[in-house]
């Protein structure tokens, strides 16, 4: 049971409510039962006492004591003990019923009424054998001035017994009810929550590749149906936004590229004019170079935006990072050589990832190009491919000028330049690292940077490692092999 699942929270909550309700209910029943039982017992005792007075004591004066004993023996026989009855005149007992049997209470031990406060009231007495009994005492004033006491009484034990069993039943029943309710409720909750689980799983899948999919609509007519409909409408709006974005990208690239083509074309035809002064040629050449750079920026921006919104289709094939780096460094060696930078590669064993060989190569090109660009003559650039758990790691380290700590989080932003002057002069677009980041993201990976200013920088990417079964691994993209030509003397 997940701690945070809605199901367990709801179950816990209503179990709590149920427990409180049960306790309150039980208490009410207990108190109610106790009051009712006591009241009815007392009622009975009072009725008996008054009945004895009106039936036997009022006619006592002209019928005589023997009549009383006879009559009472008949109505309340000595063996009869429920209720217990005693009629006394002073300390003389006129009549008394027998001992109580269940439980046994020896009535002769019960003291005669002496306390004024007991008159016309109930009082409790503890019998010699330890039982609690309740007694009702009524004084009867005879015409001759004598006071006769009528006492009725009963053991409270039967009431206690009933209450004890009631309590026991409640103590046993409450937890059982709670357990049954918990299990039942938890299982029951899964029914209405099942569509939510399905909804979640499907929602997770939406947008991984394409938005095309819709969530299942739960035809329950309740909040869940409204939720699924609302989510679908949201997906639709997202889809429209993405389509709009795509259209915008296409339109923008078209709209930017057409004037660029014209600028280029005009400048190129201008340059054909014979005998232009050198300064004019210089200007035209410079304008041409800038139009090329602008075209590069447009191209890179489009690439990034397409990668970001998942428009750019990428291959999914096993790619060996070691091969990618080998081929790429082979192509770039001279860049390093020219600056007397030693470009080293420390390949681990074959490291496969799932992805697009061309795009992965672009990562290596951009990172190594950057490293060479920002490293002074005679420095060192090293590339390492390793694995760490389920991750394939490609690390490019240089001994260059480094990046100020404050700028590190920004280097992957579009058009961010840590060192304005230097990178502009080297003709970059300010988009290289953004492209790296975008490519890593579509491959389910990430890119990181760390640096000590003045000492160098390390950029590394982490991609999900592809564990290949032993012999499938020679399937390397043939694209990587282009432009490789055996030449003697190399």
């Amino acid at each position, binding site marked *: 049971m997940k701690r945070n699942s809605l199901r367990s929270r709801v179950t816990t909550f209503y179990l709590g409510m149920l427990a409180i309700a049960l306790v309150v209910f039980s208490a009410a029943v207990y108190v109610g039962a106790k009051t009712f039982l006591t009241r009815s017992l007392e009622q009975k005792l009072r009725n008996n006492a008054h009945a004895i007075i009106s039936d036997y004591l009022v006619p006592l004066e002209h019928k005589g004591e023997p009549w009383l004993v006879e009559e009472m023996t008949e109505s309340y026989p000595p063996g009869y003990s429920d209720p217990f009855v005693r009629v006394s005149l002073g300390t003389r007992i006129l009549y008394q019923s027998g001992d109580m049997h269940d439980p046994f209470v020896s009535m002769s031990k019960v003291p005669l009424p002496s306390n004024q406060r007991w008159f016309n009231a109930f009082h409790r007495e503890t019998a010699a054998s330890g039982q609690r009994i309740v007694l009702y005492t009524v004084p009867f004033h005879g015409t001759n001035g004598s006071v006769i006491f009528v006492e009725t009484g009963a053991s409270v034990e039967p009431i206690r017994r009933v209450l004890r069993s009631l309590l026991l039943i409640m103590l046993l029943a409450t937890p059982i009810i709670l357990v049954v309710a918990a299990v039942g409720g938890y299982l029951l909750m899964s029914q209405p929550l099942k569509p939510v689980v399905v909804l979640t799983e499907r929602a997770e899948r939406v947008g991984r590749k394409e938005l095309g999919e819709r969530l299942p609509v739960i035809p329950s007519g309740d909040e869940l149906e409204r939720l699924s409909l609302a989510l679908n409408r949201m997906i639709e709006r997202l889809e429209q936004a993405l389509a709009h974005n795509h259209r915008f990208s*296409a339109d923008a*690239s*078209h709209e930017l*590229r*057409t004037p*660029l*083509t*014209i*600028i*280029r*074309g*005009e*400048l*190129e*035809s201008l*340059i054909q004019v014979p005998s232009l002064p050198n300064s004019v*040629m210089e200007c*035209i*050449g*410079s304008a*041409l*170079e800038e*139009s*090329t750079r602008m*075209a*590069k920026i447009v*191209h890179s921006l*489009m*690439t990034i935006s*397409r990668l970001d919104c998942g*428009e*750019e*289709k990428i291959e999914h094939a096993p790619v060996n990072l070691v091969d990618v780096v080998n081929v*790429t460094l*082979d*192509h*770039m*060696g*001279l*860049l390093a050589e*020219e600056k007397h930078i030693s470009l080293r590669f420390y390949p681990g064993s074959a490291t496969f990832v799932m992805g697009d060989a*061309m795009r992965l*190569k*672009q990562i290596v*090109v*951009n990172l190594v*190009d950057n490293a060479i660009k920002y490293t002074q003559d005679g420095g060192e650039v090293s590339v390492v491919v390793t694995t760490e758990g389920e991750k394939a790691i490609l690390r490019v380290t240089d001994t260059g000028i480094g990046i100020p700590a404050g700028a590190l989080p920004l280097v992957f932003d579009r058009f961010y330049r840590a060192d304005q002057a230097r990178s502009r002069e080297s*003709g*970059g*677009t300010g988009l*290289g690292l953004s492209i790296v980041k975008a490519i890593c993201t579509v491959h389910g990976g990430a890119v990181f940077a760390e640096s000590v200013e003045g000492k160098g920088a390390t950029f590394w990417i982490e991609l999900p490692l592809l564990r290949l079964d032993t012999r499938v691994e020679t399937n390397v993209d043939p694209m990587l092999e*282009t*432009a*490789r*030509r*055996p*030449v*003697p*003397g*190399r």
Partner: protein
Amino acid sequence: MGMAAAMRILVVEDEQKVSALIKRGLTSERYAVDVAADGIEGLELAEAYPYDLMILDLMVPRLTGPELLQRVRRNNTFLPVLVLTALDSIDDKVRLFELGADDYLTKPFAFAELLMRVKALLRRGPVNRSSTLRVGELELDRLTQQVRRAGKRIELTAKEYALLEYFMQNEERVLSRNMIIEHVWDQSFDGITNIVDVYVRHLRSKVDDGNPFKMIRTVRGTGYTIRSGNET
């Protein structure tokens, strides 16, 4: 260029300035050029005349480029088609070839590159595959992969060799950086590095150093070219 005068090219492009540029450039290369400003007009012209080549902008009004391409291909499977596109995702390019395009060029392009591709499409076949390439006193043997200038051996790395071979195949033509990258490296090197300049500089120092005539020339803003020096 004797043959070129007979070649007739159809340009389907709605952007008047772009079509004018292409027309001007191709005309000066002595091609006959017709311009159509929309898809319907393009289709009518393509069906009316036996063109040797069609240059087609993908986003033309009335009939989109792909539709036009499909309609043209129904009747004419031989007409070479060079597509101009502002889109550059791999997807779009693959789709173009599926529709029957023979080549494409992404805007903005250098006219030199357009011309190269036009010529390559019109040539189709008689590509120089002889084992020895010669430009002036420079000689490249494809079998032994040896390069000599005026009989003196020049040692080149693999990349420099590929670069020089590409230059020599296109003697006197201006090669843009883009063309060189696509031909000698691949697209993943596009747009980031000054890799072409570095390699050309190295190649040039090996080929031209110590010689009074510099064969490998820079064309500012456009690219590089190799000159034989025979006419000078």
